């Protein structure tokens, strides 16, 4: 995969522990990764259907987001795990994956916490406090992704 080549570059040796990661770097990284994946998709499969292309583009968007966020965030790790697992299962021999569901009791969480857990990737294993933190960074990355997507479309429509 093309992504592996730049995996070392994204791993930040000094991770910022605060809630506000340095987004300037990740924005450009995100853009670059998405661009690359996008062109790969275009060049690799010109005859595939729109549905397949849409799905692969969406996967590329999430992958670029997760790759830009790096391994510091639980949701980025979960996204990468999910994508990696998807690739492996489809290509190589099928191995039965037994997922052990561990029931964790949580003290007095609001009702919407489960909904939020289903939305944020990797949210099932976190307590409410960390879930909120992950939601914050996830929202930041998603909004950056949406802004970039809008710019792309504007460019494609109005290249001049």
């Amino acid at each position, binding site marked *: 995969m093309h992504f592996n080549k730049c995996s070392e570059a994204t791993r930040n040796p000094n991770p910022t522990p605060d809630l506000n990661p340095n987004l300037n770097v990740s924005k*450009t990284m995100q853009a*670059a*990764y998405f661009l*690359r994946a996008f062109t790969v998709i275009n060049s690799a499969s010109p005859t595939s259907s729109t549905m397949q292309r849409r799905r692969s*583009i969406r996967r590329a968007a999430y992958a670029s987001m997760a790759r830009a966020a790096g391994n510091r965030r639980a949701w980025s790790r979960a996204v990468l795990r999910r994508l990696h697992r998807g690739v492996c299962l489809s290509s190589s021999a099928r191995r039965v994956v037994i997922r052990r569901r561990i029931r964790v009791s949580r003290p007095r969480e609001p009702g919407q916490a489960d*909904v939020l857990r289903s*939305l944020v990737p990797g949210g099932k294993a976190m307590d409410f406090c960390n879930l*909120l933190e992950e939601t*914050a960074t996830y929202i*930041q990355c998603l909004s950056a992704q949406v802004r970039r997507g809008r710019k792309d479309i504007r460019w494609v429509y109005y290249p001049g």
Partner: protein
Amino acid sequence: MLHCMASSSTSTSTSTSFSYLSVFERQKTWLKSQQQQQHQANYLINESLNSLYQPSDSHTMHYQQEHYDQLPSLNSGWPDLSSLTGDPVSKKRKAETSRSSSPNNNVTEEECNKTEKRIKGNAEITAALLSNHQDKKIKESSTQKSDYIHVRARRGQATDSHSLAERVRREKISARMRYLQDLVPGCNRITGKAGMLDEIINYVQSLQKQVEFLSMKLATMNPRLDFSVGNLIDKEINTMTMSNMILPGIIGMSSEVVDPSCFQFSSSQHGMNSSNADLLQRTENSSVPMPEQFLDSCFNIHGASSNWNADLNCIHDLGYSFQFYQGNVIANNLKMDI
């Protein structure tokens, strides 16, 4: 009364300064009296509690003494208390064993809190100090030991370890909710966790739908992008990571993680364009511009170098956008096979 006022009005010029002084002096004497009251209160409290209090079980909470010593105005008020209670001890969230100090600690601390509050209601100076003091509590207590979080019970709140842990957790959650409130647009008026959570959920769902919609749009309009720039983009990413690393003070990345594969084209490129000079100076690293030169030479073949430089500047300003490709790729209808 009127006589006094008349006399004061006649000699206003001289009396104003005098009146200010008198007010100040009055405040000072009042504070002193307050402190004396405090002395007496402490003494009385200690006496009464010594006779009344009975030792409890091993899960008593012990509080820090040093905080009281730091208050300058109350300094004189506390020494007798500190001598009574023995060595300063900090509470542990998971404390199992009690220390060997006197068992009067927690109760006397509560009483002291109450007297503190009474004085706070009266004097403004001490009130400011006390508010600082209470804000400092948790911060200072949390910096002492790494494995436990030290919390102090406030006045009127339960001192149980479970409730304290609950309170810490609640405060963390509320801090994060406030941060999320800044992130999600239009949440300023909503108060309460439930409403906020609903808004957050809606926002995340809408963002995800937007990403889906945009990807669908990008998928349908693909055939226009008629170039294969895979390797080019690889180089671009490498240069961006390098330039991001080199830009001083912004990012703390180390330059050792530079991918060496990007230098494989350096041998083929020797000539340095004069238009690249400013870029080279900006990047401060002699090995970085090689791939940029390569890219530049690629575009020179098609006669679009000036646009390229301008757009590279955009990238180095961290304002990356797709406009970078506009002038070069689509307008010239390039097909680049590298």
